[in-house]
Protein backbone atom coordinates (compact mmCIF):
# COMPACT_ATOMS: atom_id res chain seq x y z
CA UNK A 1 0.00 0.00 0.00
CA UNK A 2 2.12 2.87 -1.22
CA UNK A 3 1.13 6.48 -1.31
CA UNK A 4 -0.83 6.58 1.92
CA UNK A 5 0.74 9.21 4.06
CA UNK A 6 -0.29 10.54 7.46
CA UNK A 7 1.18 13.77 8.79
CA UNK A 8 1.58 14.54 12.48
CA UNK A 9 -1.28 12.65 14.10
CA UNK A 10 -1.35 12.62 17.91
CA UNK A 11 -0.04 9.25 19.13
CA UNK A 12 1.04 7.31 22.20
CA UNK A 13 3.36 4.31 22.14
CA UNK A 14 1.50 1.50 23.94
CA UNK A 15 4.09 -1.23 23.54
CA UNK A 16 7.35 -1.73 21.69
CA UNK A 17 9.79 -4.45 20.94
CA UNK A 18 13.27 -4.38 19.43
CA UNK A 19 13.57 -5.30 15.77
CA UNK A 20 16.98 -6.35 14.45
CA UNK A 21 19.86 -4.36 15.89
CA UNK A 22 18.72 -0.79 15.47
CA UNK A 23 14.96 -0.69 14.92
CA UNK A 24 11.73 -1.11 16.83
CA UNK A 25 8.20 -2.32 16.20
CA UNK A 26 5.81 0.05 17.93
CA UNK A 27 2.23 -0.72 18.88
CA UNK A 28 0.80 2.81 18.87
CA UNK A 29 -2.56 4.35 19.63
CA UNK A 30 -3.24 7.26 17.29
CA UNK A 31 -6.02 9.77 17.79
CA UNK A 32 -7.38 9.79 14.24
CA UNK A 33 -6.39 6.36 12.92
CA UNK A 34 -6.81 4.09 15.92
CA UNK A 35 -4.33 1.45 16.99
CA UNK A 36 -1.64 0.38 14.55
CA UNK A 37 1.80 -1.15 14.25
CA UNK A 38 4.57 1.21 13.16
CA UNK A 39 7.99 0.12 12.09
CA UNK A 40 10.57 2.58 13.43
CA UNK A 41 13.85 2.20 11.58
CA UNK A 42 17.17 3.04 13.21
CA UNK A 43 15.75 4.43 16.45
CA UNK A 44 17.92 2.46 18.87
CA UNK A 45 21.48 3.21 19.84
CA UNK A 46 23.45 6.24 20.96
CA UNK A 47 23.11 8.29 17.78
CA UNK A 48 19.34 8.20 17.61
CA UNK A 49 17.66 11.42 18.62
CA UNK A 50 14.21 9.86 18.72
CA UNK A 51 15.14 7.00 21.10
CA UNK A 52 14.34 9.07 24.15
CA UNK A 53 11.12 10.39 22.60
CA UNK A 54 9.69 7.04 21.58
CA UNK A 55 8.77 5.99 25.10
CA UNK A 56 5.38 4.94 26.42
CA UNK A 57 3.17 7.55 28.14
CA UNK A 58 4.67 10.57 26.31
CA UNK A 59 2.27 12.48 24.03
CA UNK A 60 3.81 12.57 20.55
CA UNK A 61 3.07 13.79 17.06
CA UNK A 62 4.00 11.20 14.45
CA UNK A 63 3.99 10.90 10.67
CA UNK A 64 4.03 7.61 8.81
CA UNK A 65 3.56 6.07 5.39
CA UNK A 66 1.79 2.88 4.40
CA UNK A 67 -0.71 0.92 6.41
CA UNK A 68 -1.34 -2.53 7.82
CA UNK A 69 1.80 -4.41 8.89
CA UNK A 70 4.06 -2.29 6.68
CA UNK A 71 3.44 1.21 8.04
CA UNK A 72 6.70 3.05 8.63
CA UNK A 73 7.34 5.87 11.04
CA UNK A 74 8.84 8.79 9.14
CA UNK A 75 8.88 11.56 11.74
CA UNK A 76 8.21 12.00 15.44
CA UNK A 77 8.25 14.96 17.78
CA UNK A 78 7.00 15.75 21.27
CA UNK A 79 3.44 17.11 21.27
CA UNK A 80 3.72 20.89 21.76
CA UNK A 81 2.85 21.93 25.28
CA UNK A 82 2.83 18.33 26.49
CA UNK A 83 5.17 16.78 29.04
CA UNK A 84 8.47 15.53 27.59
CA UNK A 85 8.97 13.18 30.53
CA UNK A 86 7.18 9.89 31.04
CA UNK A 87 5.04 9.08 34.11
CA UNK A 88 6.47 9.32 37.63
CA UNK A 89 8.17 5.99 38.38
CA UNK A 90 5.57 5.08 41.00
CA UNK A 91 2.74 5.36 38.46
CA UNK A 92 4.33 3.29 35.69
CA UNK A 93 2.66 0.00 36.64
CA UNK A 94 -0.70 1.76 36.50
CA UNK A 95 0.24 3.20 33.11
CA UNK A 96 1.06 -0.23 31.71
CA UNK A 97 -2.24 -1.51 33.03
CA UNK A 98 -4.06 1.19 31.01
CA UNK A 99 -1.97 0.20 27.99
CA UNK A 100 -2.86 -3.46 28.33
CA UNK A 101 -6.57 -2.64 28.51
CA UNK A 102 -6.26 -0.62 25.29
CA UNK A 103 -4.19 -3.33 23.59
CA UNK A 104 -6.78 -5.97 24.46
CA UNK A 105 -10.03 -4.04 24.08
CA UNK A 106 -9.47 -1.54 21.23
CA UNK A 107 -9.39 -3.17 17.80
CA UNK A 108 -6.65 -2.34 15.30
CA UNK A 109 -7.38 0.43 12.79
CA UNK A 110 -10.61 1.42 14.52
CA UNK A 111 -10.39 5.18 15.22
CA UNK A 112 -11.53 6.01 18.77
CA UNK A 113 -10.73 9.69 19.36
CA UNK A 114 -12.85 9.83 22.54
CA UNK A 115 -10.94 6.85 24.00
CA UNK A 116 -7.68 8.51 22.97
CA UNK A 117 -8.66 11.70 24.82
CA UNK A 118 -9.76 9.67 27.86
CA UNK A 119 -6.36 7.94 27.89
CA UNK A 120 -4.48 11.25 27.60
CA UNK A 121 -6.52 12.78 30.44
CA UNK A 122 -5.97 9.70 32.61
CA UNK A 123 -2.19 9.89 32.10
CA UNK A 124 -2.33 13.56 33.12
CA UNK A 125 -4.14 12.58 36.31
CA UNK A 126 -1.46 9.96 37.07
CA UNK A 127 1.23 12.56 36.31
CA UNK A 128 -0.49 14.91 38.79
CA UNK A 129 -0.25 12.10 41.38
CA UNK A 130 -4.00 11.91 41.96
CA UNK A 131 -5.24 8.95 44.02
CA UNK A 132 -4.52 5.98 41.78
CA UNK A 133 -7.49 3.67 42.54
CA UNK A 134 -10.02 6.42 41.75
CA UNK A 135 -8.17 7.34 38.54
CA UNK A 136 -8.12 3.72 37.36
CA UNK A 137 -11.79 3.05 38.19
CA UNK A 138 -12.79 6.17 36.27
CA UNK A 139 -10.75 5.05 33.26
CA UNK A 140 -12.23 1.54 33.32
CA UNK A 141 -15.79 2.89 33.57
CA UNK A 142 -15.41 5.39 30.72
CA UNK A 143 -13.52 2.92 28.53
CA UNK A 144 -16.27 0.30 28.82
CA UNK A 145 -18.94 2.91 28.10
CA UNK A 146 -17.08 4.43 25.11
CA UNK A 147 -16.27 1.07 23.56
CA UNK A 148 -19.92 0.05 23.79
CA UNK A 149 -19.64 -2.84 26.22
CA UNK A 150 -23.13 -1.97 27.44
CA UNK A 151 -22.24 -0.76 30.90
CA UNK A 152 -25.20 1.41 31.80
CA UNK A 153 -24.66 2.77 35.28
CA UNK A 154 -27.57 4.46 36.96
CA UNK A 155 -30.45 2.33 35.57
CA UNK A 156 -32.01 -1.03 36.23
CA UNK A 157 -31.75 -3.55 33.40
CA UNK A 158 -35.43 -4.32 33.18
CA UNK A 159 -37.75 -1.34 32.97
CA UNK A 160 -34.92 1.20 33.19
CA UNK A 161 -35.91 2.54 36.60
CA UNK A 162 -33.21 4.80 38.10
CA UNK A 163 -31.03 3.10 40.70
CA UNK A 164 -31.77 4.13 44.29
CA UNK A 165 -29.10 4.92 46.83
CA UNK A 166 -30.63 2.86 49.62
CA UNK A 167 -31.31 -0.27 47.57
CA UNK A 168 -29.08 -3.20 46.54
CA UNK A 169 -28.40 -4.63 43.10
CA UNK A 170 -26.82 -7.60 41.39
CA UNK A 171 -24.75 -7.03 38.25
CA UNK A 172 -24.97 -9.37 35.25
CA UNK A 173 -22.45 -8.38 32.55
CA UNK A 174 -24.67 -9.08 29.56
CA UNK A 175 -27.78 -7.69 31.17
CA UNK A 176 -27.11 -4.94 33.71
CA UNK A 177 -28.34 -4.19 37.21
CA UNK A 178 -31.12 -6.18 38.87
CA UNK A 179 -32.59 -5.14 42.23
CA UNK A 180 -32.12 -7.59 45.07
CA UNK A 181 -32.40 -7.81 48.85
CA UNK A 182 -29.88 -5.97 51.03
CA UNK A 183 -28.53 -9.27 52.41
CA UNK A 184 -27.94 -10.86 49.00
CA UNK A 185 -24.44 -12.17 48.48
CA UNK A 186 -22.13 -10.03 46.30
CA UNK A 187 -24.79 -7.34 45.92
CA UNK A 188 -23.76 -3.73 45.24
CA UNK A 189 -25.04 -0.84 47.30
CA UNK A 190 -27.07 1.56 45.15
CA UNK A 191 -25.17 4.49 46.62
CA UNK A 192 -21.84 2.99 45.45
CA UNK A 193 -23.15 2.60 41.90
CA UNK A 194 -24.49 6.16 41.84
CA UNK A 195 -21.21 7.47 43.24
CA UNK A 196 -19.30 5.62 40.50
CA UNK A 197 -21.62 7.12 37.87
CA UNK A 198 -20.97 10.60 39.35
CA UNK A 199 -17.21 10.01 39.57
CA UNK A 200 -17.38 10.59 43.32
CA UNK A 201 -14.77 7.98 44.25
CA UNK A 202 -13.49 8.88 47.68
CA UNK A 203 -14.97 6.56 50.29
CA UNK A 204 -13.30 3.19 50.76
CA UNK A 205 -16.61 1.29 50.59
CA UNK A 206 -17.48 2.97 47.28
CA UNK A 207 -14.01 2.28 45.87
CA UNK A 208 -14.20 -1.36 46.87
CA UNK A 209 -17.63 -1.80 45.24
CA UNK A 210 -16.33 0.01 42.14
CA UNK A 211 -13.26 -2.23 42.00
CA UNK A 212 -15.39 -5.38 42.25
CA UNK A 213 -17.88 -4.17 39.65
CA UNK A 214 -15.23 -3.08 37.15
CA UNK A 215 -13.38 -6.36 37.63
CA UNK A 216 -16.55 -8.30 36.74
CA UNK A 217 -17.36 -6.08 33.76
CA UNK A 218 -13.77 -6.16 32.46
CA UNK A 219 -13.47 -9.93 32.85
CA UNK A 220 -16.54 -10.23 30.67
CA UNK A 221 -15.18 -7.79 28.08
CA UNK A 222 -11.82 -9.61 28.04
CA UNK A 223 -13.53 -12.94 27.38
CA UNK A 224 -11.22 -14.94 29.61
CA UNK A 225 -7.95 -13.30 28.51
CA UNK A 226 -5.61 -12.74 31.45
CA UNK A 227 -4.10 -9.32 32.14
CA UNK A 228 -0.34 -9.76 32.46
CA UNK A 229 0.08 -6.38 34.13
CA UNK A 230 -2.18 -7.57 36.96
CA UNK A 231 0.03 -10.59 37.63
CA UNK A 232 3.21 -8.48 37.65
CA UNK A 233 1.59 -5.86 39.92
CA UNK A 234 0.62 -8.60 42.37
CA UNK A 235 4.19 -9.97 42.39
CA UNK A 236 5.58 -6.46 42.97
CA UNK A 237 3.20 -5.99 45.90
CA UNK A 238 4.28 -9.33 47.40
CA UNK A 239 7.98 -8.38 47.17
CA UNK A 240 7.30 -5.01 48.80
CA UNK A 241 5.35 -6.72 51.60
CA UNK A 242 8.26 -9.11 52.21
CA UNK A 243 10.69 -6.17 52.35
CA UNK A 244 8.47 -4.31 54.81
CA UNK A 245 8.20 -7.42 57.01
CA UNK A 246 11.97 -7.98 56.96
CA UNK A 247 12.66 -4.41 58.02
CA UNK A 248 10.34 -4.82 60.99
CA UNK A 249 12.03 -8.01 62.16
CA UNK A 250 15.61 -6.93 61.40
CA UNK A 251 15.71 -3.36 62.67
CA UNK A 252 12.51 -2.30 64.41
CA UNK A 253 13.65 1.26 65.03
CA UNK A 254 15.39 1.93 61.73
CA UNK A 255 12.42 3.12 59.72
CA UNK A 256 8.84 4.20 60.14
CA UNK A 257 6.26 1.67 59.03
CA UNK A 258 6.45 1.22 55.28
CA UNK A 259 3.43 2.40 53.38
CA UNK A 260 1.82 -0.53 51.58
CA UNK A 261 2.28 -0.09 47.83
CA UNK A 262 -1.42 -0.50 47.11
CA UNK A 263 -1.55 2.75 45.15
CA UNK A 264 0.69 1.20 42.51
CA UNK A 265 -1.48 -1.80 42.06
CA UNK A 266 -3.93 -1.67 39.19
CA UNK A 267 -6.68 -3.70 40.82
Amino acid at each position, binding site marked *: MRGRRVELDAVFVLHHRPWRDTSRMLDVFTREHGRLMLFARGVRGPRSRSASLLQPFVPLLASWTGSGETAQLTQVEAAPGGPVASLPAGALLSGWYLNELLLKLVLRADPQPAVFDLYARTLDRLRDRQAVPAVLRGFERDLLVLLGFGLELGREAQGGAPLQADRYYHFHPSLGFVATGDDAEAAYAGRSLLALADDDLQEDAVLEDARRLMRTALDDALEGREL*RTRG*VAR*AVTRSAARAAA*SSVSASPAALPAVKPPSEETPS
Partner: protein
Amino acid sequence: MKHAPSVARLIDALRTLPGVGPKTAQRMAFHLLQDGREGARRLAEGIDHALTNVGRCRCCRMFTEAELCAVCESPQRDASLLCVVESPADVVAIEQSGGYRGRYFVLMGHLSPLDGIGPEQLGVGELEALLSEGLVQEVILATNPTVEGEATAHFLSELTRARGLRATRIAHGVPIGGELEYIDGGTLAHALAGRLSLGQ
Protein backbone atom coordinates in the same frame (compact mmCIF):
# COMPACT_ATOMS: atom_id res chain seq x y z
CA MET B 1 16.49 -23.36 -4.89
CA LYS B 2 16.00 -25.86 -2.11
CA HIS B 3 18.91 -26.40 0.29
CA ALA B 4 20.13 -29.82 1.39
CA PRO B 5 18.45 -30.63 4.73
CA SER B 6 21.67 -30.20 6.77
CA VAL B 7 22.38 -26.84 5.14
CA ALA B 8 18.82 -25.68 5.75
CA ARG B 9 19.15 -26.72 9.38
CA LEU B 10 22.40 -24.76 9.75
CA ILE B 11 20.86 -21.66 8.15
CA ASP B 12 17.90 -21.95 10.46
CA ALA B 13 20.19 -22.28 13.49
CA LEU B 14 22.23 -19.21 12.49
CA ARG B 15 19.07 -17.14 12.39
CA THR B 16 18.80 -17.39 16.17
CA LEU B 17 21.71 -14.89 16.32
CA PRO B 18 20.61 -11.27 16.89
CA GLY B 19 20.36 -9.22 13.72
CA VAL B 20 20.76 -12.21 11.38
CA GLY B 21 18.08 -12.56 8.72
CA PRO B 22 17.69 -15.32 6.10
CA LYS B 23 20.12 -13.78 3.56
CA THR B 24 22.88 -13.20 6.11
CA ALA B 25 22.34 -16.67 7.58
CA GLN B 26 22.77 -18.24 4.15
CA ARG B 27 25.95 -16.25 3.52
CA MET B 28 27.35 -17.34 6.89
CA ALA B 29 26.45 -20.99 6.32
CA PHE B 30 28.08 -21.06 2.88
CA HIS B 31 31.19 -19.40 4.25
CA LEU B 32 31.47 -21.89 7.10
CA LEU B 33 31.07 -24.84 4.74
CA GLN B 34 33.31 -23.49 1.99
CA ASP B 35 36.46 -21.66 3.11
CA GLY B 36 35.85 -21.55 6.82
CA ARG B 37 35.70 -25.24 7.71
CA GLU B 38 38.51 -25.02 10.28
CA GLY B 39 36.91 -22.00 11.91
CA ALA B 40 33.53 -23.68 11.74
CA ARG B 41 34.84 -26.62 13.73
CA ARG B 42 36.27 -24.28 16.39
CA LEU B 43 32.95 -22.41 16.48
CA ALA B 44 30.99 -25.63 16.98
CA GLU B 45 33.34 -26.80 19.73
CA GLY B 46 33.37 -23.38 21.35
CA ILE B 47 29.60 -23.24 21.54
CA ASP B 48 29.35 -26.80 22.79
CA HIS B 49 32.04 -26.25 25.44
CA ALA B 50 30.52 -22.98 26.66
CA LEU B 51 27.04 -24.46 26.87
CA THR B 52 28.33 -27.33 28.98
CA ASN B 53 30.57 -25.30 31.26
CA VAL B 54 29.18 -21.80 31.63
CA GLY B 55 26.48 -21.21 34.19
CA ARG B 56 25.38 -18.34 36.38
CA CYS B 57 27.19 -17.05 39.45
CA ARG B 58 25.39 -18.20 42.59
CA CYS B 59 25.67 -14.71 44.02
CA CYS B 60 25.21 -12.20 41.19
CA ARG B 61 23.84 -14.23 38.21
CA MET B 62 26.77 -13.20 35.95
CA PHE B 63 28.07 -15.88 33.55
CA THR B 64 30.79 -17.97 35.15
CA GLU B 65 32.36 -21.42 34.97
CA ALA B 66 32.77 -21.69 38.72
CA GLU B 67 30.16 -21.43 41.42
CA LEU B 68 31.14 -17.80 42.01
CA CYS B 69 32.31 -15.34 39.37
CA ALA B 70 35.69 -13.61 39.62
CA VAL B 71 34.16 -10.41 41.00
CA CYS B 72 32.16 -12.11 43.74
CA GLU B 73 35.12 -14.28 44.71
CA SER B 74 37.66 -11.47 44.92
CA PRO B 75 38.48 -10.32 48.47
CA GLN B 76 39.51 -6.96 46.95
CA ARG B 77 35.94 -6.05 46.03
CA ASP B 78 33.85 -4.00 48.42
CA ALA B 79 30.94 -6.23 49.45
CA SER B 80 29.01 -3.30 50.94
CA LEU B 81 28.40 -1.86 47.44
CA LEU B 82 26.04 -3.66 45.09
CA CYS B 83 25.48 -2.41 41.54
CA VAL B 84 22.29 -3.73 39.92
CA VAL B 85 22.39 -3.92 36.10
CA GLU B 86 20.14 -5.29 33.38
CA SER B 87 22.62 -7.43 31.44
CA PRO B 88 26.06 -9.08 31.51
CA ALA B 89 27.17 -6.55 28.87
CA ASP B 90 26.50 -3.79 31.42
CA VAL B 91 28.85 -5.47 33.90
CA VAL B 92 31.57 -5.57 31.22
CA ALA B 93 30.98 -1.88 30.37
CA ILE B 94 31.24 -0.78 34.01
CA GLU B 95 34.30 -2.97 34.62
CA GLN B 96 36.01 -1.39 31.61
CA SER B 97 35.33 2.08 32.97
CA GLY B 98 37.62 1.01 35.80
CA GLY B 99 36.17 3.15 38.56
CA TYR B 100 33.99 0.67 40.40
CA ARG B 101 35.19 -1.55 43.25
CA GLY B 102 31.95 -3.08 44.50
CA ARG B 103 29.97 -6.12 43.42
CA TYR B 104 27.11 -6.63 40.95
CA PHE B 105 23.70 -8.17 40.58
CA VAL B 106 22.56 -8.98 37.03
CA LEU B 107 18.80 -8.95 36.47
CA MET B 108 19.00 -10.41 32.94
CA GLY B 109 16.27 -8.01 31.85
CA HIS B 110 13.95 -5.35 33.23
CA LEU B 111 10.35 -5.14 34.40
CA SER B 112 8.13 -5.49 31.35
CA PRO B 113 4.60 -6.03 32.64
CA LEU B 114 3.02 -6.21 29.16
CA ASP B 115 5.28 -9.17 28.39
CA GLY B 116 4.59 -10.75 31.77
CA ILE B 117 8.13 -10.08 33.00
CA GLY B 118 8.00 -9.31 36.71
CA PRO B 119 10.13 -9.73 39.83
CA GLU B 120 10.32 -13.52 39.56
CA GLN B 121 11.78 -13.50 36.06
CA LEU B 122 14.44 -11.00 37.20
CA GLY B 123 15.68 -13.07 40.13
CA VAL B 124 14.44 -10.56 42.68
CA GLY B 125 14.04 -13.37 45.23
CA GLU B 126 17.80 -14.01 44.96
CA LEU B 127 18.50 -10.29 45.29
CA GLU B 128 16.34 -10.14 48.43
CA ALA B 129 18.25 -13.10 49.89
CA LEU B 130 21.53 -11.31 49.14
CA LEU B 131 20.34 -8.13 50.88
CA SER B 132 19.18 -10.16 53.87
CA GLU B 133 22.73 -11.49 54.40
CA GLY B 134 23.57 -8.07 55.83
CA LEU B 135 26.82 -7.27 53.97
CA VAL B 136 25.36 -4.80 51.47
CA GLN B 137 25.02 -1.19 52.63
CA GLU B 138 24.29 0.60 49.35
CA VAL B 139 22.48 -0.60 46.24
CA ILE B 140 23.40 1.33 43.08
CA LEU B 141 20.58 1.06 40.55
CA ALA B 142 22.26 1.10 37.13
CA THR B 143 19.33 0.00 34.98
CA ASN B 144 18.84 1.74 31.63
CA PRO B 145 17.21 5.20 31.44
CA THR B 146 14.19 3.75 29.63
CA VAL B 147 10.67 3.63 31.04
CA GLU B 148 11.19 -0.06 31.84
CA GLY B 149 14.57 0.62 33.44
CA GLU B 150 13.14 3.45 35.55
CA ALA B 151 10.25 1.27 36.75
CA THR B 152 12.72 -1.47 37.67
CA ALA B 153 14.96 0.98 39.55
CA HIS B 154 11.99 2.45 41.40
CA PHE B 155 10.72 -0.98 42.46
CA LEU B 156 14.18 -2.12 43.62
CA SER B 157 14.87 1.14 45.45
CA GLU B 158 11.69 0.61 47.50
CA LEU B 159 12.78 -2.94 48.38
CA THR B 160 16.21 -1.64 49.35
CA ARG B 161 15.01 1.27 51.45
CA ALA B 162 12.40 -0.86 53.21
CA ARG B 163 15.34 -2.90 54.51
CA GLY B 164 16.97 0.24 55.88
CA LEU B 165 19.69 0.25 53.19
CA ARG B 166 20.81 3.11 50.95
CA ALA B 167 19.54 3.09 47.36
CA THR B 168 21.19 5.29 44.71
CA ARG B 169 20.53 5.76 41.00
CA ILE B 170 23.22 6.44 38.41
CA ALA B 171 22.97 9.96 36.96
CA HIS B 172 21.71 10.47 33.42
CA GLY B 173 21.95 13.40 31.15
CA VAL B 174 24.21 15.31 28.85
CA PRO B 175 27.01 13.14 27.44
CA ILE B 176 30.55 14.34 28.08
CA GLY B 177 31.67 16.37 25.05
CA GLY B 178 28.06 16.85 23.96
CA GLU B 179 26.53 20.17 22.97
CA LEU B 180 23.19 21.15 24.46
CA GLU B 181 21.56 22.23 21.23
CA TYR B 182 21.95 18.74 19.74
CA ILE B 183 20.47 16.94 22.71
CA ASP B 184 16.86 15.80 22.59
CA GLY B 185 14.23 17.24 24.94
CA GLY B 186 13.73 14.06 26.98
CA THR B 187 17.42 13.76 27.86
CA LEU B 188 17.67 17.46 28.67
CA ALA B 189 14.60 17.29 30.92
CA HIS B 190 16.19 14.35 32.74
CA ALA B 191 19.50 16.19 33.08
CA LEU B 192 17.76 19.29 34.47
CA ALA B 193 15.74 17.25 36.96
CA GLY B 194 18.93 15.59 38.21
CA ARG B 195 21.02 18.78 38.46
CA LEU B 196 23.69 19.10 41.17
CA SER B 197 24.82 22.02 43.33
CA LEU B 198 28.25 23.45 42.55
CA GLY B 199 30.98 24.69 44.85
CA GLN B 200 30.38 22.40 47.81
